[in-house]
Each structure stands twice: as structure tokens, then as C-alpha cells.
């Protein structure tokens, strides 16, 4: 059994930056990840910032990996953690599909999973999550298909649709999933518009940018939803529909087409508006939620937070949890960007150094916390408008639990 100071579960931006901080301060780590390459979901990211610069996940991962390698950091990919066992005399045994690891501290940086937006036919080969398409395109450089459609219009799916286009993949359009017992949020044009407005400032179209300033007012948004053009609003030449929904994915052995209908401002199907669209792949996009199963397995208390995307393990700004020796960082703490995850990882690493060694890293930790806050403020894309409230509420609950 391999022994170390900290086992870091997840080699994404949070896990890697935490590893770097630890190693810089002579705290030994082993980073494990079930994906065959390090970089987590940041590896597949590729988008343009408002200033025109490209955020290239492969490059950003290389930067972190170079620092990690300089410090002789052990990173083992292809390892799936299935349990974190709490030892009676302190410390933890991390159980994986390959071997066990022993450490006094564990950082759980397992990121997020996708929320499904099921519609009839969604289990057919050719239907995949929007994240799957991102990985296939940017990481594996394989086309998801000849012609596709994105079902679910939100910040993440719009960004990835752009990535697919960039890679030369033919996308028919983006549209909502039909309203059903699961898809309420994603199927409601008004709610979707609210979400779109938050990324409209990134649109290359000046008209949309201009409109987004006014669309902050909900009255204006209501009008916009009502008069949303039938042909969709074209972002980068591809229609984004807020008044059309996909009701069914058709095919026997695999995806052959989808059925699309017009919908009212409330997402109700308008009769006799069915159209069939031939596609060979469909991307489903329902949003992200923190993947906290290992945090639950090790007994961390949770809180449901809409702003953060789901059930989140209680933690403070310094990434400490209510269980000694267990830390969290990245999307498991709430859905934000890779930049925030990276900054959180740094904070988590410094927290571990502060708590486990005699080194004085108080100032460095304060700087790291400041960096997290600044990164959050500067974000050009915000996954949820009330993220600060969400963060604050979790912190309060953590403090309450800690003092009781």
C-alpha cells in the first residue's frame, strides 16, 4: 500500500493546483484520476474571452502539468476511487480499482456530473451529453457525427456548440427539450432566456450584445421571449431556438432524426407544427451538478444549494470541511469555471500545508482566498447569477456545524 501525506482525488484544475502548492511546501501527494489523461474537464475546454483571447484547456493543462512535473508530483491516471475509509486511529485509506493508498489527508476534487434532460429516444446510440461531445471533439479529435442538434439551451451548451462549430462539425440548431416531468427548467422559454441573457455579452453579434443591456429588465425579457424570432437567433450562423422544442429522437438502432415543434412562451406545444430533422447525433444539455459521492461516502454533511447546482458538502473558504483531514475543491464545491476551480485548488493546497506543517503560509493563504474571490468577480461567464449568496450560505452552515 502506497503511503503519502495527501491523496488528491481528481487531476483537474483544482486537484493539480492543490498538488503544486503542497509539493512546493514539501508536503507529499499522490494525485489519482480515472480519466486516462490529466486536466479534468478543463482539458476539453476551448472558448474565446471577451478580449478575443482563447482559453485553451490543453494549453492550460500543460502549464499546470509542467509545474507539477518540475516538483516531481506523482499523478496516476486510469485509477478509479471507490471508497475513502476512515481509520479508527486517524488517517484514511483510499480504495481504488488498482491499489490502496494511505494518507492523513484527502482532497476530494472530483468535479461535476451532467444533469440529464431525458426525452423519448434519448438512449439511442448517437445521443450523448453535451460534455461527451466536447471531449470527443477537443480531446480525442473525433467527430461526434456528420450532422447534429443540441437539445438544451444554456451557458454550457452554447459554449460547446461553438466548439463543435469551430471543429467543422455541422450543427443544425440548438433548441429546448420538450416539456415533461423532468425538464421543467430547461423547457421553459422564459427561464432559458434569463439564462441566455447572462452570456449575451459574449455574442459576436452587436445586435445581441446591445439587446442584452436592456434585457436585464425582466419586462424586456418577457417581450423578447414573446417575440423571439421563429427562425431562432443566429449565433455564429447557427439558429438558437427558444420557441422550438425537440419532442422525440427517432431511430431504431441509432439516431436517425429528431422531431421538433413550436412552443408557446410557457413551453406548451403548438399543435400541427411538427418538423422532422435528419441528424446522426444529438447532444443533451441539462446543466451540471457537483459529483459528491465520495464526500458522502466519507460522511461529510451536505446542504442543497440551487445556486451551486445541487447537493454540496459543507466547507469554508479555505476549502476545509467538517471532517478533519478532508478537503474539497473545484466543482464539487459548487459549479463555477475552471479558473475558479484552479484558484480554489491553490487555496486547498495551502490550507493543507498550514494545517499539517509548521510552515507559516497564512499570508499566502489569504492571497489565495483573495484570488478566488477576484477570479469569481472577473468571470465573463457566470453559471448562476446568485453564486455569491450560495457560497455564503454554505460557509455559514459549515461554521454552524463546526461550532456545535
Amino acid at each position: 500500500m502506497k503511503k503519502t501525506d495527501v491523496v488528491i482525488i481528481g487531476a483537474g484544475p483544482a486537484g493539480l493546483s492543490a498538488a503544486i502548492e503542497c509539493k512546493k511546501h514539501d508536503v507529499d501527494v499522490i494525485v489519482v484520476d480515472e480519466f486516462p489523461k490529466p486536466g479534468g474537464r478543463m482539458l476539453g475546454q476551448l472558448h474565446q474571452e471577451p478580449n478575443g483571447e482563447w482559453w485553451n484547456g490543453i494549453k492550460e493543462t500543460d502549464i499546470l502539468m509542467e509545474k507539477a512535473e518540475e516538483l516531481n508530483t506523482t499523478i496516476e491516471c486510469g485509477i478509479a476511487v471507490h471508497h475513502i475509509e476512515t481509520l479508527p486511529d486517524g488517517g484514511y485509506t483510499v480504495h481504488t480499482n488498482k491499489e490502496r493508498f494511505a494518507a492523513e489527508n484527502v482532497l476530494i476534487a472530483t468535479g461535476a456530473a451532467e444533469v440529464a434532460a431525458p426525452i423519448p429516444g434519448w438512449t439511442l446510440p448517437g445521443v450523448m451529453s453535451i460534455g461527451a461531445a466536447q471531449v470527443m471533439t477537443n480531446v480525442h479529435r473525433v467527430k461526434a457525427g456528420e450532422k447534429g442538434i443540441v437539445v438544451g439551451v444554456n451557458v454550457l451548451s452554447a459554449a460547446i456548440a461553438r466548439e463543435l462549430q469551430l471543429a467543422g462539425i455541422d450543427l443544425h440548431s440548438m433548441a429546448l427539450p420538450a416539456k415533461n416531468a423532468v425538464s421543467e427548467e430547461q423547457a421553459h422559454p422564459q427561464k432559458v432566456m434569463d439564462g441566455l441573457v447572462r452570456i449575451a455579452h459574449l455574442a459576436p453579434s452587436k445586435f445581441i450584445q446591445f439587446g442584452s443591456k436592456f434585457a436585464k429588465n425582466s419586462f424586456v425579457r418577457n417581450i423578447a421571449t414573446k417575440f423571439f424570432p421563429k427562425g431562432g437567433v443566429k449565433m455564429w450562423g447557427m439558429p438558437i431556438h427558444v420557441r422550438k422544442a425537440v419532442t422525440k429522437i427517432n431511430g431504431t438502432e441509432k439516431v436517425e432524426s429528431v422531431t421538433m415543434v413550436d412552443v408557446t412562451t410557457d413551453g406548451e406545444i403548438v399543435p400541427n407544427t411538427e418538423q422532422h430533422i435528419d441528424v446522426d447525433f444529438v447532444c443533451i444539455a441539462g446543466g451540471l451538478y457537483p459529483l459528491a459521492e465520495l464526500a458522502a461516502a466519507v460522511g461529510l454533511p451536505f446542504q442543497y444549494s440551487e445556486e451551486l447546482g445541487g447537493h454540496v458538502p459543507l466547507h469554508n473558504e479555505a476549502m476545509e470541511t467538517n471532517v478533519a483531514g478532508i478537503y474539497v475543491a473545484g466543482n464539487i464545491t459548487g459549479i463555477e469555471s475552471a479558473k475558479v476551480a484552479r484558484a480554489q485548488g491553490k487555496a486547498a493546497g495551502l490550507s493543507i500545508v498550514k494545517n499539517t506543517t509548521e510552515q507559516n503560509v497564512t499570508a499566502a493563504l489569504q492571497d489565495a482566498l483573495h484570488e478566488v474571490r477576484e477570479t469569481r468577480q472577473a468571470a465573463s461567464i457566470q453559471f448562476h447569477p446568485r453564486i455569491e449568496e450560495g457560497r455564503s450560505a454554505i460557509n455559514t452552515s459549515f461554521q454552524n456545524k463546526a461550532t456545535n
Partner: protein
Amino acid sequence: MTSKRIDNHPVLGKLSDKEKITFQFDGKTYEGYENDTIASALLANGIRTLRKHENTGNPRGIYCNIGHCFECRVTVDHQSNIRACLTPIQENMIVESGQVQPHPLHPDNDTEAIRTYEDFEQWEEE
């Protein structure tokens, strides 16, 4: 057939030359590149169906592509339930797709089987 690979990308650049790897899927031989996962190599070869649902036989392929959903599970060199989306291909790897499993309580299988409480009561009486 047009290439299923993104050889040239305006930002990510050109795909570098990679070693070709030969592997088998359900008895047929395919070619992929070094660092392809089983899932990406098969998709590059136009194959989407990776298994049949154990009960219903419905065809399934990748869904999440990052190891969460297990839809892509295949048997690799006789080890079952390996995620195709996480496993890099290797030379001469033998990959097999999962098929429908016999169901002990399926009506077609054992007509004598006790399936419900009524069956049990009847059997007890006999």
C-alpha cells in the same frame, strides 16, 4: 467516406502523426491511433453501438464519455465491465460488446419457476 477525425483545427492545430494501433471489436479488426480510447477509436470507425442492454437488448453507445454513466462498458481481453470511454486502445486488444443476459424469471425460460406469491401458494398446496 469523409474522415471522421478532426485533422485540422483553427485553434488546436493539426493532429500530429500518431502510431496506428490495430484492435478487435466483436471479432472484426479495426485501426485506431495511439491515445484513442476504445470509444473514440470505434466512433472514428463509424461504430456507435457498444453494447445491448442486459434485459431489453436495446442498443447503447456512449452517453457521458467520461466514465460516469457506464453505458459504454465492454469486455476487454476477457475482463468485463471496462469503460470504453476511459480505456486507451492497445495493439491486439480484444474488445467484445455485452449482449442480452438470460433472465431467470423470464416467461420463456422456465415455465415451472415460482414467480409470484400465487405461484408459491399453488406449489405449497401440491
